[in-house]
């Protein structure tokens, strides 16, 4: 783990949606330790600022981050071209506990950009989970991340996609992602669920999983707060007793569910 930004060079910049870009990076000198699925880096756009972004692909000597242009720093990152350099600190935080998913049924539930942090987990789980289902909710068909890759996953596991706002051409599901839970058969008591998306979506998904018999201890949520230092010192990312940059971002629902219901945390 590095606490000072290490220069990484942009190998490729791939537009994913109208406002999302995947940046594939390689070290431009010193190399950071390998990222585990679910961990994040503080990504520094030189002269602009630093934002936390979860790893989207863990490659051989490369690392990919999928960035949505929502603010000054992320917009600057999205504009980076191949050959340009940014700074990385990390890897930070806890990743997905994939050992808990070994040999069990696994539900991966993603909302919007939440598919990006789950993507490397799916890469590891394909062929490893007893049964794997990937459920994705997104705003419109144009906002769906990695559609080509989802098509490939469909050959190896169950993949369901639903949108909030269909276009006239859309022939798939319409509605919230939790509605897809009824469509997959899982051994509820032994299933593991990995969930990432807007916090309200995760809260409702956790409740829907619980209602279907999945124990909270087998539901992992990737939480987000205002990560700054990444090392558990500054306290910006505090959620009750947790410092999410250190104790998260992936937190067992048995620990986090109650905290998510507390206002002002």
């Amino acid at each position, binding site marked *: 783990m590095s606490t000072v930004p290490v220069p990484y060079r942009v190998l490729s910049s791939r537009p994913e949606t109208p*406002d999302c870009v995947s940046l594939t990076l390689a070290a431009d000198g010193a190399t950071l330790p390998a990222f585990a699925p679910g961990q994040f880096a503080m990504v520094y756009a030189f002269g602009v600022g630093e934002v936390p972004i979860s790893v989207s692909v863990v490659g051989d000597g490369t690392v990919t981050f999928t960035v949505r242009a929502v603010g000054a720093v992320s917009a600057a990152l999205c504009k980076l071209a191949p050959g340009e350099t940014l700074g990385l600190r990390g890897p930070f935080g806890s990743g997905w506990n994939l050992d808990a998913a070994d040999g069990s049924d696994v539900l991966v539930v993603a909302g919007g950009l939440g598919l990006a942090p789950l993507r490397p987990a799916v890469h590891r789980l394909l062929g490893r989970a007893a049964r794997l289902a990937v459920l994705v909710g997104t705003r419109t068909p144009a906002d769906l991340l990695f559609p080509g890759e989802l098509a490939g996953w469909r050959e190896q596991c169950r993949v369901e996609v639903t949108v909030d706002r269909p276009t006239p051409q859309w022939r798939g599901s*319409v509605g*919230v992602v939790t509605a897809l839970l009824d469509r997959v058969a899982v051994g509820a008591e032994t299933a593991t669920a990995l969930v990432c*998306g807007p916090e309200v979506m995760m809260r409702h998904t956790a409740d829907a999983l619980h209602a279907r018999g999945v124990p909270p201890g087998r539901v992992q949520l990737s939480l987000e707060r205002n990560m700054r230092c990444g090392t558990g010192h500054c306290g910006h990312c505090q959620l009750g007793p947790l410092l999410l940059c250190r104790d998260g971002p992936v937190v067992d629902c048995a620990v986090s569910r109650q905290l998510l219901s507390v206002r002002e945390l």
Partner: protein
Amino acid sequence: MTERQPQPLLDGLSAPHRARLLGLADDREFPADMRLFDEGGSANRFWLLRSGEVALDLHVPGRRPPVVETVGAGQLLGWSWLFPPYHWHLGARTLGPVSAWEFPAHRVRALCEAEPEFGLRLALHCAAVIAERLQAARLRLVDLYAPDGGGPP
């Protein structure tokens, strides 16, 4: 995850009640793009989907009916049959081939009246479905996946 498709409504009934309900059902297969019912029409049937997907749409003059939600395998299609005046609130069209149990509404309502315990279980399940869809509609109103996360901080 393609083993037995969960059927929350049937799974929530006792074995005798399940048998009574299924005793009223017809096995139906529908082709893709088939209109099952129209908004305002008589809600005299409902379905439990075994496979496939059905789009629920809304009549908007001068426009192709916008799809507001889809219902898939394991889910209940139609609850307007349970409440007077028994008119569909939305229209429905199959998105692909669909297999389903089809239930005659008047016979199921008669069974509910004749067997209050069965009627309570069925009504509670339908109420849960309605509550879930109301909650889903509310969540979608918030537009959670919007760039601003559904609104200003």
